[in-house]
């Protein structure tokens, strides 16, 4: 068999029991086996059944991606592993809080660009703004790059969350 060796970026959704140590199992798997984590988000999504959803963005050759999914699947508290990149269409969003400090023209310019990117100012002082922006990772990167010369001082990002398009559940 011919083995593909090009590195691909995949977004994987994982449903897990929300129990102690489950995140450590997932992270330990990635570090122990040398897989990449580009971003990872986790929160409880079903309080009644104590289910959490983890969204992992990772990269690797197709063989490595297949391994990652198989290794995740065999962790005991993991219910489902879905590769959103390969299994149908999906939408991805990331949220960032971006703090920009400055005075005068730079301050006006920052507001103007924020408006173009549909970022909202959620905190303001005489010398700073905190913008909230959501969208694709690329959009966030572009916004943050533009803020650098305008006095970027701090960024906090959620990492990617993703969901499949259409009516069916994971």
């Amino acid at each position, binding site marked *: *068999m011919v*083995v593909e060796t090009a590195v691909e970026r995949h977004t994987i959704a994982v449903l897990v*029991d929300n129990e*102690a*140590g489950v995140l*450590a*199992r997932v992270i*330990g798997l990635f570090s*122990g086996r040398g897989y990449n984590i580009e971003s990872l988000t986790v929160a409880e999504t079903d309080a009644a059944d104590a289910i959490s959803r983890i969204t992992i963005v990772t990269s690797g050759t197709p*063989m490595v991606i*297949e*391994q990652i999914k*198989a*290794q995740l*699947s*065999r*962790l*005991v*508290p*993991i*219910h489902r592993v879905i590769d959103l990149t390969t299994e149908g269409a999906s939408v991805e969003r990331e949220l960032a809080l971006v703090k920009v400090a400055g005075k005068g023209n730079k301050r006006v310019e920052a507001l103007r660009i924020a408006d173009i990117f549909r970022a909202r100012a959620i905190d303001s002082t005489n010398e700073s703004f905190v913008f909230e922006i959501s969208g694709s990772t690329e959009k966030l990167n572009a916004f943050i790059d533009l803020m650098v010369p305008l006095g970027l001082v701090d960024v906090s990002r959620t990492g990617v969350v993703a969901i499949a398009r259409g009516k069916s559940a994971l």
Partner: protein
Amino acid sequence: MADQKMTGSEIIIKALINEGVDTVFGYPGGAVLPIYDAIFQQNQLKHILVRQEGGAVHMAEGYARSTGKVGVVLVTSGPGATNAVTGLTDALMDSIPVVCLTGQVPTHLIGNDAFQEADTTGITRPCTKHNYLVKDIRDLSRVMHEAFYVARSGRPGPVVIDLPKDILMAEEMYVDHGKVEHKTYRPRLKAETNEIKKAVAMIAAAKKPIFYCGGGVVNSGGNASKLLGRLIKLTGAPVTLTLMGLGAYPGSDKQSLGMLGMHGTYEANLAMHDADLIVAIGSRFDDRVTGRLADFSPNSKKIHIDIDPSSINKTVAVDLPIVGDVGTILDQMLRVWKAKGHKANQKALKAWWTQIEEWRTRDCLKYNQSGPIIKPQHAIQRLYEMTKDHDCYITTEVGQHQMWAAQYYKFEEPHRWMTSGGLGTMGYGLPAAIGVQIAHPESLVIDISGEASFMMNMQEMSTAVQYRAPVKVFVTNNQYMGMIRQWQELLHGGRYSESYTDALPDLVKLAEACQWVGLRAENADELDDVIQEMITIDRPVLADIRVDQTENCFPMIPSGAAHNEMLLGPADEAKRPVSEEGMVLV
């Protein structure tokens, strides 16, 4: 009784008994004293007191591997748990079902660096199949039963239950979850019919097929080996076994090519290299098996049957993966083979076997036993000849003797061979042998050993005496860490850095001091007598077999080489230096 509250310790004992456990291997300590008190007050559960917790896990592994049951370990918090880590990792790598109960400091002290506190679930997370920290007494009975379910289901493995001391003393009702399954963990057992049909058609059409079978066949239970035997007879194909798979198919049968891989036979490795179809069953394309991946069996289609999806396409991409239980799938394959009236390609097979027989004539396992110095291969060959008609179980340590045992001792059925394959744990053999002997008190249990490995867990000699476990330790003593010395010859210009053991104890006197029987053979003509005496004595025996100090283990695929680049003996070694790429591999 059922509606009466019990202490956590009593719940644990009750759950173990309901799981059919008869033996626990353990060592007491402060955090598990309540469990030891509960053990004291009952007589259904037998406790084997080891001399170090590492020994307890290997004993449980030997017990599990020779019976097919789950092995059970009980150790205390802190050092008790950390000493168990090597055994747990060993059990994970070789897929041995073990449940290990570890004591823990009381819940209110967790995280306070309390006396004998260790983050046991943190430490054991990567070296167990799953682990639990019980922080609420109401979870205890469920966790106990769930742990057994997880340990033995799917690809088996070790499970740790960390038990804070206050939980052991709290009171709660016991709920028998005897038949409980995990709420989501359900390994797939049966394959799709079309997968089976494809596999069977590929086997029937193959001109140069080979079955490559591993420990998964053994783990699937005795019936899987029987079914495998039937399929191999029907197809007329050759079969090679991994180190962990020895015994899954009778070693003396003519369709068996013996072990494959780094120290596998010439015929097995060349047949793998030249095959047009590899049927991998319960094996995992380990680096010791494949050699250089780029040149691994370049012209074959590959079918891979395994219960663990993560074993498939891990290192070698296969054409037809089938996930499920080996025994169930073999049964499905046999049915389809018969229903479809498949016939093997006799003409092609005849040519294939002619080729294999030609490779066989190289007689790659031959050695030259002449003169008084005992060749280690000869020692193991004689041990095999003299014990093969006994009800015999073999364990090994790790190193040259282990490979010679795998090459020269032929196993006719599964569960008779216990060795540390994946992790390569020196010191495994003696405690594993004791575990086997506890499970099979009437059988002959022999640890084929080397002096260096033996010394890593020799404190367990005392355990064997205490429980009247008449194990035999057959030490092929060359005073070297033989495999290390062999690699230093091959890779490091014969500079024997720290591989010679000076000041070894006198093993015969050591045996006597430990209330064992010590025997020694220094000359080839003493060997048979010593083996005979060892077998006959109904007590633990340490046999010090002084073997040729310079002998190396062949055939060998040097690291970084392919199956068709084997070294058959020292002469080949000189001709072909190992590549730089190979040097960095282990």
